[in-house]
């Protein structure tokens, strides 16, 4: 994306952001709540219209070719966003059909994903009865269901216990090794250490961009948290 700007009234949620993420990378967008991370990825998905700039995802322009982009992108929104009255399995079936998958493939992939996400026992219960963490796992399952080339995860580990969080990250790295590109937003600095490259986003602008270790070295800080606080204070 080049020089992307998106405003809500007087508020510039994304302010002249330019970013490029190569294929096969885990790219982290680190920033406090309200820094514009979610707005930026909604622009990427063509969910929000933007005022200036251009976006190209998987060799397609957004918003012009957003349908092609969406077909090849798995998206996990910040809210749990699953149908509470449907079972996890029914949610998967619904979204799989929206992505044009046949029912046989959906069932096969659902089985594989639910094993990994430890949802096999809960596959048929109404999602309303699941815990917050379980619902988030279903949400991740939906994002991974279409076997996408690009996976966009908006704060995927909020409310997830440490063990599962580790499993999530192990899986993200496996996906990266398979050539998938992952864009992940987080406000948890420890998590940002696991990504290949990170952009620090504060008040709609990218203030730092690079490998987490390189960034800490450049700024002479011992943790991403210190880096975060330094920029947050000075922004």
């Amino acid at each position: 994306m080049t020089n992307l700007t998106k405003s809500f009234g007087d508020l510039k949620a994304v302010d002249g952001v330019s970013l490029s993420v190569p294929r096969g990378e885990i790219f982290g967008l680190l920033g406090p709540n309200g820094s514009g991370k979610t707005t930026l990825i909604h622009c990427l998905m063509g969910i929000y219209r933007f005022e200036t700039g251009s976006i190209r995802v998987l060799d397609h322009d957004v918003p012009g070719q957003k349908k092609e982009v969406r077909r090849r992108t798995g998206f996990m929104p910040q809210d749990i966003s699953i149908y509470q009255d449907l079972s996890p399995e029914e949610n998967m079936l619904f979204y799989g059909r929206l992505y044009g998958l046949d029912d046989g493939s959906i069932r096969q992939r659902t089985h594989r994903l639910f094993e990994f996400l430890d949802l096999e026992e809960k596959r048929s219960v109404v999602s309303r009865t699941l815990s917050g963490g379980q619902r988030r796992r279903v949400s991740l399952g939906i994002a991974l269901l279409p076997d996408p080339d690009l996976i966009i995860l908006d704060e995927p580990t909020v409310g997830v216990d440490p063990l599962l969080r580790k499993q999530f990250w192990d899986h993200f790295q496996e996906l990266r090794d398979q050539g998938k590109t992952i864009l992940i937003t987080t406000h948890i600095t420890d998590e940002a250490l696991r990504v290949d490259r990170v952009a620090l986003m504060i008040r709609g602008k990218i203030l730092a961009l690079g490998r987490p270790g390189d960034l800490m070295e450049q700024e002479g800080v011992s943790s991403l948290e210190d880096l975060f606080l330094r920029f947050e204070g000075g922004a």
Partner: protein
Amino acid sequence: MRPALAIGLRVIRQLTRDRRTIGMILIVPLVITLLFGYALQGETQHNPVIVVNEGAETPLKSKFVEELRADDKVDVVDVSGDMNASWDRIRAREVSALVVLPSELSTDVPSPPFNITLLVYADEAEPSVRASVMAAVSAALGRTVQDSALPVQLSVETRPVWGEGELSGLDVSLPGVIGFIIMFLVLLLSVLLLVREDLEGTKVRFYAAPINRWQMMSGYVLGMTFFGVLISLVVLTVSIVVFGATVRGDILLVIGFVILFSIGTIMLAILLSRLARNEFQAVQLAPMIAIPSIALSGFLVPIQTLPVELQYIAAFIPLTYAIDGLKTIMLRGGGFGDITLDFAALVIYVVLAFAGAVLSSKETVA
């Protein structure tokens, strides 16, 4: 007391923060009260009638027609000697009633029968029109004979136009009740379902899926039409089985017509759901549309009793055509050929509401 006060204040604060809800709380009752005030103050006037004269013209009959013409409740559009032609005109709904003057109604009849009855054939699907015509005929007859020396007992009787027996009050109300229930429930259900999509956060993911808005709208319509049909079938079944509602026409035509109305209402709900941001607002949208529709659609009072400006508004209310079509099928025994206007109006309703729903829905949230 403090906790109760705290709860009360919190409720007031919460609702007053929601500007749309406050707007609806103030505006909806105002609009509804004004509408009902205007709609219910009128009485059925200027009902078109034909006087059918059996036998020769007599001074007494002429006097009666003159008296009838003087009454605002009716407009005597024709005085005819042809019962068959007049009958065709009332069946074509050109007029509301036929007033049949028997040949005995004359001072010249040498030995008149003791009882003479004027028959009034009036649309039994519109009882208030019928009552109004009857009142005008009785009054005109009274004024006609008061100075004459006619030594007979005169009476006026009504006869149905569309079937053998008379219709009960329940029969006459049911088309309106069916139309209203379907409109209210389908609207409420659909708006709530769509608003919940927003509230549960599923909308964003839905918007990120590789589908276009036509597919999205068609999917909603398909799913909600199932419930529209279900509601329609429940209302019809209870009306017929429990209350013995009269259905003189084809029940399948009733069902088909009701489904068409449901589909239009679902599309309207999709359009309206753009205005509601939470359940408070959603539950107020259904009555905001449904209640004015009751006032103006002929459900409570015949449209011809409304002030002229409200009659123009009534012409743009889908429930008007739904009720008229249902009355025609259920009470008048009409077939598809008799409801073409209502059917065309509902098709236009469906097309416009669908276009509105598609145009108002965006593939982008902002």
